[in-house]
């Protein structure tokens, strides 16, 4: 089983989720993160004091899939999360030893 983590622009979440669902991926876990990279953040000012915020709000998607779906999932994310401008994000793929479904105790591919 592979774990695919994608850091994307927040407003792309809905689109990515729909595309993955179409692909037959019915589960994912999402969190709010802040990203630092080539994309610049923003300035804020309060009574003349300026702060430069270098971190940009991003959304992280974690999807666990069986090995042979991994490539398709990566491609789908690239296709749907891409705007072409800096800050579109990254995808990280890693290996999982085991997956368990808490409700049933099932493990391995059946647990996904």
């Amino acid at each position, binding site marked *: 089983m592979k774990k695919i983590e994608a850091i994307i622009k927040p407003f792309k979440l809905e689109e990515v989720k729909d595309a993955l669902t179409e692909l037959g991926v019915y589960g994912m876990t999402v969190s709010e993160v802040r990203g630092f990279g080539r994309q610049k953040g923003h300035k804020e*000012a309060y009574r003349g004091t300026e702060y430069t915020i270098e971190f940009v709000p991003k959304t992280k998607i974690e999807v666990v899939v069986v090995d042979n779906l991994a490539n398709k999932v990566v491609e789908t994310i690239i296709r749907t999360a891409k705007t072409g401008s800096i800050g579109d994000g990254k995808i990280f793929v890693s290996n999982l030893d085991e997956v368990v479904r808490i409700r049933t105790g099932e493990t391995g591919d059946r647990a996904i």
Partner: protein
Amino acid sequence: MLTSSALVLAMTMPGLALFYGGLVRNKNVLGTIMHSFIILCLVSVMWVLWGYSLAFGPDVGGVIGSLEWFGLSGVGGDPNPAYGSTIPHQVYMLFQLMFAAITPALVTGAFAERMRFSALLVFAALWSTFIYCPLAHWIWGGGWLAKMGALDFAGGAVVHISSGWAALACALVLGKRKGYGTAYLAPHNLPMTLLGAGLLWFGWFGFNAGSALGANALAASAFLATNTAAAMGALSWMVAEWLHRDKPTTLGAASGAIAGLATITPAAGFVGLFPALLIGLTAGVACYAAVVWKGRFGYDDSLDVVGIHGVGGAIGIFATGLFASKLINPAGANGLFFGNPGQVYIQLATIGAALVFALVGTFIILKLIDWTIGLRVDAEEEERGLDLSQHEERAYS
């Protein structure tokens, strides 16, 4: 009266500012609050310079006031018999200032989350001068509608029809928000909105009871009508929603209260308890329907100014023509149910005049601004939100 003026001030800021501020998304809350706040500041200055004179100064052809009272010259501590014989003229002027401030602030709900700040300033200045002042003059300043006998106790036409139908022009000219109909555009902070609604209700007593220009039995009657219609509006919107969608919502109840308040505004000083109950009832149901039907017409009146103030104000002016009674207010007139069908026509004319004038006038102003400095933020700014793009600030951190 000064207390009433302070109450009406608090309606605009913080009342309306928070009511609207809670309804937008996180990234636009400061920009939205700023709309009400800066309009209050702008109108406070314009009104004492020329606005009051245009609206309430010596009549010029029934259409507008002259500039004779520019800078409040001649508006002092002595009462002006036309505007309350027992209160200093300045007090009346201050009370009217607060109405002049809240009206354009109400309009801002229509273009929330997408207006450029500089365009907002220009819009507020032009709108206040060229739409609000004439309208106020026509109805309250001795203009042609006043001469016709139009009844508008505390601003059903001057405040609510004008802002509500101006809002329609805004929604049409500015177009929809990005993501309208697809993205999650839910209110970011409903307790803020409910706090705003509470302050609005509180302040509305200043609005309606204060319009009696004195702490007398008429003020009590207006207070009663106001409170009753607000409560009925909330209940009837809630019930309508409950029946229609299976759940009564908090925002619905609050919206119904505001609808009830807007609708009773023109009638508050002319009607008794039972008409007030009926007006509140109608307001809640009708405005709920208007807000739901908005979807069909496809314009994005973001915070439902048309559905609540436009529709409510019109119903209120009309209802005044039905239920007004000289028993309640001898200085008023009787309505249809008290034997004077003619009043209904006058009221309909008032609705028509105010509605068309606000709609068309606003349309022209907006187009002018759009051609010159541009009305709307660009797509990327809209995405980042007004707070960062227009003000380089964040509401919460």
